[in-house]
């Protein structure tokens, strides 16, 4: 009789678990984790200031008050940019935390529940060990459902703002930083052009050769910086694409197909981010 009652109760618990579907949020967690890590990349904001600092040496009026004011403004922009990136990182990290499967360990609470069950003589109906296991599974399932529900509300509600923020960020990286780096390249080309013209005038061919070599190094360096900004832009594109996909398929976030898709976004973002570091 006791066995029948045990089987019935455990069966009921297991049916509940199957019906509610203990969820697997690893896809969301990994996508959010990798996205948070990559969004925080500060190489661009740092170089947005550094490009002006590097050019100070090229210009005899690099210490002029107007140049200092230009630099001060750029430093303020860097601070705002870093702070904005951090807010995006905070959001993505919060999603990661909410999607974490090991968010809570129930051992202590289950001990308490087991004690309460023993005190209430529940052991007459159900073996305490089995009760503990069933209660643990149920606690996990209810928590999972709660986490899934929260993610389903939060992600679509934030998607518009996420897309807009990433667009603004991409514009600053691609257009503003891109033009500033192009300005630096042009200034350097002109600077070396003048050194070469002056060397030719004085017939110092060795100096011309040195200028050509130094220019090549600077050009390579700036091309690398441009490549980094394009890679960061691709990272941002992937995050935006992944978040939009997640929103479109919010009811399927625990399905195998969506987990695979999110894992693919995470892999691509990770690989692009590796190239940045």
């Amino acid at each position: 009789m006791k066995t029948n009652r045990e089987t019935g109760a455990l069966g009921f618990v297991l049916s509940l678990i199957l019906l509610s579907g203990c969820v697997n949020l690893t896809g969301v967690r990994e996508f959010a984790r990798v996205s948070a890590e990559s969004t925080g990349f500060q190489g661009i904001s740092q170089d947005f200031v550094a490009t002006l600092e590097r050019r100070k040496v090229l210009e005899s009026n690099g210490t002029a008050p107007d140049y200092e004011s230009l630099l001060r403004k750029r430093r303020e922009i860097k601070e705002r940019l870093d702070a904005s990136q951090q807010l995006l990182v905070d959001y993505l990290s919060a999603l990661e935390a909410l999607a974490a499967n090991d968010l809570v360990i129930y051992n202590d609470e289950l001990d308490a529940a087991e004690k309460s069950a023993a005190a209430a003589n529940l052991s007459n109906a159900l073996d305490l060990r089995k009760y503990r296991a069933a209660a643990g599974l149920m606690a996990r399932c209810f928590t999972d459902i709660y986490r899934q529900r929260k993610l389903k509300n939060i992600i679509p509600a934030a998607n518009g703002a996420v897309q807009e923020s990433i667009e603004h960020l991409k514009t600053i990286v691609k257009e503003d930083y891109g033009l500033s780096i192009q300005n630096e390249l042009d200034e350097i080309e002109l600077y070396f052009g003048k050194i070469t013209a002056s060397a030719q005038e004085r017939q110092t061919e060795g100096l011309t050769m040195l200028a050509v070599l130094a220019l090549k190094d600077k050009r390579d360096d700036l091309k690398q910086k441009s490549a980094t900004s394009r890679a960061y832009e691709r990272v941002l594109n992937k995050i935006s694409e992944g978040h939009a996909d997640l929103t479109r398929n919010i009811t399927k976030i625990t399905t195998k197909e969506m987990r695979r898709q999110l894992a693919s976004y995470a892999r691509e973002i990770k690989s692009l981010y590796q190239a940045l570091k």
Partner: protein
Amino acid sequence: MSDPLTAEQALKIAGVFKTSALAVGRFTIAHWQELSPAERKELNHNEWNLFHASEDFINRASEIELDGLEKSLKSIVSAAEKANRAVKNVTSVKKAVSIAASLVALADAMMSKSPGATARGLKRVYDELKA
């Protein structure tokens, strides 16, 4: 007071100043031998000023873009707060104890084989998690 320019307009102006700076610099190099040192200095100065103007408008474009970015981020901050609150709800020890207690009650109800008591027990567990 908001900037009368859009970020796109500011960036276009930055591009125009950059093109002008480049033209002045190229002219200086192309006519190097014909120019006096004073003229070279003057042209160099003009070239730098044009590059500075370009960078100044890049700064303005970024500031306008950042205004838009910060505006969009307000909703994201609120979403992050909601997610963090949800994490706190799940991780709260007090809550987990309540959940465990409600599970005990649920188990009791399940074993009494009373559908009404089981439904109430389930609701209690769900309410604990939702609260």
